[in-house]
């Protein structure tokens, strides 16, 4: 059995709309090992986000295989696929997607809705908030935080269910360089701790954190 925690093999996705078809990605293959930090870089519209959504079990590809920790999410029923995501995957998005009416602690704890029987989740949430340096902000709401702090809340939320894979879509897109570095460092720390990180970004500054950088253009991997 392979150690590969995330594996995409010849994955293809085409969007079909009234304006016609758009080939988002074509025959993309990618593997991420535990403890590995992989960055996918490329210009806007090259298919990075589509790749990440497919990898996270959110977007069914037209062709190809996806495996998360050896399981094929698109062979599962929607509810089982949701459980698989809750067990294995953490997401970080450019726009944070925090709930404006919840405190930092509750925004982190909201991930526990996906795994309601998880014991010790509150203790872990507090530790994660401390870990990302937001201890003093535990009971603040997102409107009272800087953008960098909000992204760190999103990282803590993504890590709450102890995922094996962290999928980050332009996590530094809205951040100043210093805040971006902090966020990338947290991703690197996760990988250092044995997790797998797949970062998609067009930010060239992110190049110094990943172990490996994959370059995409027009839906295809050009360089690995």
């Amino acid at each position, binding site marked *: 059995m392979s150690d590969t925690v995330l594996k995409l093999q010849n994955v293809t996705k085409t969007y079909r709309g009234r304006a016609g078809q758009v080939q988002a990605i074509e025959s993309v293959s990618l593997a991420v090992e535990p403890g590995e930090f992989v960055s996918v870089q490329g210009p806007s519209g090259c298919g990075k986000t589509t790749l990440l959504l497919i990898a996270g079990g959110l977007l069914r590809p037209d062709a190809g295989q996806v495996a998360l920790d050896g399981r094929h999410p698109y062979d599962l029923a929607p509810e089982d696929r949701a*459980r698989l995501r809750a067990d294995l995957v953490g997401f970080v998005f450019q726009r944070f997607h925090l709930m404006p009416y919840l405190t930092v602690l509750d925004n982190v704890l909201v991930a526990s809705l*996906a795994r309601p029987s998880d014991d010790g989740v509150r203790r872990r949430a507090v530790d994660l908030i401390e870990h990302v340096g937001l201890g003093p902000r535990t009971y603040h709401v997102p409107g009272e935080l800087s953008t960098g702090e909000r992204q760190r809340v999103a990282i803590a939320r993504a890590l709450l269910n102890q995922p094996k894979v962290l999928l980050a879509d332009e996590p530094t897109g809205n951040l100043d360089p210093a805040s971006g570095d902090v966020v990338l460092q947290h991703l690197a720390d996760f990988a250092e701790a044995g997790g797998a990180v797949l970062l998609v970004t067009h930010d060239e500054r992110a190049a110094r954190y990943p172990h490996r950088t994959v370059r995409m253009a027009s839906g295809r991997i050009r360089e690995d």
Partner: protein
Amino acid sequence: MSIWRLIAKEILYRRLNFALAALAVLVAVGSLVAVLTLLKGHDLRTEGIAEVQAKKAGEIGHNLQDDARRIMLGLGYNVLILHKEQDLGEFYTRGQASKTFPESYGDVLAQSDIILVQHVLPSLHRRMEWPEKQKRVILVGARGEAQRGHVDPKKPLVQPVSPGEMVVGSVLAAEAGLEVGQTVTLLGREFTVVKVHDRRGDEDDYTAWVHLSDAQAMFDQPGEVDTILALSCYCANTSADKMLEEIEKQVTRLLPDTRVICLEHEAAIRRATRASAGQRAEEFLALDQAGHESLRAERAALAAWVIPLVVVGCIVWVGLMALGNVRARRPEIGILRAMGVRGGQVVAIFLGRAVMVGLIGAVIGYAIGFAVAAVWDAREAGEGALTGGPAGAAALFGPGLLVAVLALAPVLSAAASLVPALLAAQEDPAVVLREE
């Protein structure tokens, strides 16, 4: 983190949306509770009014009967005085008395201080053959009223027929060819017809009236009469119940060889008058009750279409507010689904919120609807639109309605929000997150 905590926090954050949705439930529940409570108040007040009216009607009927009794008492009793030995069977079957007694008894009775009689009419009767006319007739010899010398004279009830004159009934006059001014012969005595009565529909139509002295002479019974009709007689210092008995006792004490008959039709009038008084009271009560029932029916009919209209309108309103909430929370739904929150949980989040909308709207709506109804009920009672006091909050309160409202409003609110909640659960997180 529980779903309920998430719901509570979201409600506090999006207060306006929640308040508008709860307002819809409030309006529906408030209207329903107000109308049902008002109808209940109406029923309670109507019951109260019915009791009061029944009591009043009873009192009125009783008073009317008393009044009738007193009025009739004031009029006194009409009695017929016969000879003590007169066989009543013979009297009733033959229509005349065979025993006679002195004419002066009438004067004795009229002069009495114990028996107060308004009118005393001594007379002599015969059902006989009028040989000159070959007709059977009723002949009455009367002299007019006995004079009551000790009191102010009353206007005579009947005009006496003078000696040598005759008054006849209409049928007799027609069949015997009698006319006013005509001289006729009866048992060999001449009489002048002075009056022909209009038709009365009874035996008077076949009766001839002459002066008592003429009748006594014709029948060879000078100074004798067979009956004294005593009208409006009563005894002083005697209760109503004992009146007739006392009259009989006093008459027979004054006139030892007589007996007294209370005229039955007079007694029937007394009974009929009292019964009529009671019947009028019952009719009044029935009319009043019908008025209340009609008013209630009008209100119930109005409620029957207004309430469903309001409830349906409010359900649509709640549904639209829920749809707006779902649209506003698409990114939230997207991230929840991405994290692995299942569709059923998303539905639960929105339905739980709808339950809270229904519950809070129902509690406030019940309170407001009940308060409005109680105030309205009190005002309506105060204005006298319906007589009777206000039912009062304690009487108007119905635990059944409260429980029903608190149970049904959340269910209906959740039902109204079901489609939006299902749409939320079916949101494709990939689409939402990519759009974001």
